[in-house]
């Protein structure tokens, strides 16, 4: 700290001055826009969650497991995503499929979203296009760590986001919470 910064009041006043300067500049722009003197308005706050910014189509949101036509998972439990996952948040247990042309299916497919870093490597690694991160769901939460673990059934129930990027499936309710 230099000599001037040591005086508390000087720094407080300079901070207040900065805030006030932005306030009046912004208000001036809004007034100018309202009377037609300027084409661009002042800065606004988006009223989240009623209002939202548009999502990028490349957004990585909550994972989902893609289904075959008969509703069973497309996943063949090859463990590529589990292997590539840098956060070690995917837990797969494989079992035999009665159809020898499919051969292998996950008995268990859990993602611990409390550990997930949303890097999207699992999607890249998947040779079957069985896992995607296109649900558009960003707001999931839980009161416990256990509630952040999403099971195979929860992940299979999700749909891809609509054309507007808005989720089409409800956010799954974690096991530790009722509705």
């Amino acid at each position: 700290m230099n000599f001037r910064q040591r005086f508390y009041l000087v720094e407080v006043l300079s901070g207040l001055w900065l805030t006030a300067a932005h306030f009046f500049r912004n208000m001036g722009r809004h007034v100018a826009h309202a009377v037609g003197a300027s084409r661009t308005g002042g800065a606004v706050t988006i009223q989240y969650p009623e209002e939202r910014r548009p999502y990028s189509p490349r957004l990585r949101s909550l994972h989902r497991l893609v289904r075959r036509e008969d509703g069973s998972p497309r996943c063949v439990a090859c463990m590529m995503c589990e292997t590539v996952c840098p956060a070690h948040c995917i837990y797969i247990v494989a079992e035999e499929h009665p159809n020898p042309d499919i051969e292998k299916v996950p008995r268990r497919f859990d993602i611990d979203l409390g550990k997930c870093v949303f890097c999207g490597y699992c999607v890249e690694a998947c040779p079957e296009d069985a896992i995607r991160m296109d649900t558009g769901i960003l707001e999931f939460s839980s009161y416990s760590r256990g509630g952040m673990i999403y099971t195979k059934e929860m992940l299979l129930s999700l749909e891809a986001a609509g054309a507007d990027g808005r989720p089409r499936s409800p956010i799954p309710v974690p096991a530790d919470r009722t509705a």
Partner: protein
Amino acid sequence: MPKLTVDGKEVEVPGGTNLIEAARKAGVEVPHYCYHPGLSIAGQCRLCMVDLEKAPRPTIACNTTATEGMVVLTETDRVRETRKSIMEFHLINHPLDCPVCDQAGECWLQIYYMKHGLYDPRMTDEKVHKPKAVPLGPHVMLDAERCILCSRCVRFCDEITATGELGIFERGDHSEIGLFPGRALDNPYSGNVVDICPVGALTDRDFRFQVRVWYLDSAKSVCPGCARGCNIDVHVNRRRPHHAEGRRVARLKPRFNEAVNRWWLCDAGRYGFTFVDDQDRLLVPTRREGETVSDATWDDAIVALAATFRRSPPDEIGIIASPKMANEDLFALRRLLDNLALRRVAFRVPPRVAGDQDNFLIRADKNPNSLGAELVGLGGDSRAVLEAARARRLRCLVIFGHDLLASEWPEAEVREALGAVETVIFVGSNAHATSAAAHWVLPAAAWVERDGTYTNFEGRVQRFRPAVEPLGQALAEWEIVGRLLAALGVDSTATRPEHWFRQLVAAVPAFAGLSYQALGDGGRLLPGAVRA
């Protein structure tokens, strides 16, 4: 001894050596699928092509004998081009289902494609489809689509086991491996075909889908299934505990040892490890008073046992050691016996069903260290110990591992004996009827959880190494005995199995000159042993 040159390196090999082995000796790897040093030469896969000086075209190395002055070139453009074409040919009808294939990660199609293939596939037609996931026997699953028809499995069943279950049927690209009608691949060595299969055509039904091979760690070990002491690698899954529901030991694979098992392992040994992760493993020392069983700490248990030993006259203590214990454990026990002047000691308990034996690997004695126990000097009359207990002449009986109630001895007599002894102490890894009848139960580490040596039936001392941590509070037997020795006031400086082994070598003349360094990976014959 012909002298030849491989890629500019001069090497001298015994007469009759083929070019793959000669190149290996020169440090050059010739890729191959069908050649296996333990089997006859088939020349099926054509991948081991090499150029010979003055020869008009490349030739297969596996079926060419090294001769004096031969000049072998393994990396000419012509050889590289040939290998690439052969790889493309092998993979024409391959289903490329690596994601669901258990072999992925240790598959020679993957390895050689990356090393010698890397072509752009030109196959545009529909691939030939063959049966998938066909069980051939209790342990082996066949996927005919992945097979490259190297015929190693067929030759194994014809030449090593001489059972001839397998053959190649149909013709051309419809050829497939299969069983002869009415047969099943159920010979006692069937698991070996999975090891020698270079691709994912034959997979292990026990290991199937349990865990991906790249998660496995490996430790060099010795099979405890019989007195042969086959060399093995223990493959354990420590990185993904959820995969096999708590099963840590994933599989056992034979480890080459020219003097013991070469490349092979019997099925009984290969699948005989399940006790390690079984539900009946003993995890904490327990004490039984009447019908109530309570957990104890190691300190309490050792103090109580030392008090029992001090209280009892040497004549009233019986010890039944186990030929499944390592040499180190047995010698620690010997120390205890010498210090307390105990003489009611034995280790042989006859099994209810006599073990099977063949003239290949399997031995009738299903214990890995009977000879070691004999040499360490624990070989007494076990029946006499039991009779002494029945006659109420024993105050304390220590049983290592044995389930006496499942032995050849009449169950009623054993029960009477166990009931007649004031303190029965059981030391072992798994619970059974005998451990349930003991007053103190001390958990011992399984062989994959610890270091040690076994002496096989022909006197070969071989070392096994730890692959996983002991379960619960289990300790190796040498450590349990060592703690007891310390509690009895015997000065014991041995804190590692190697220390016990050194003391054993110093005290028992039969082991003279041995050390962990001398044993190495392949073991050493005892100085006095004659190879059977």
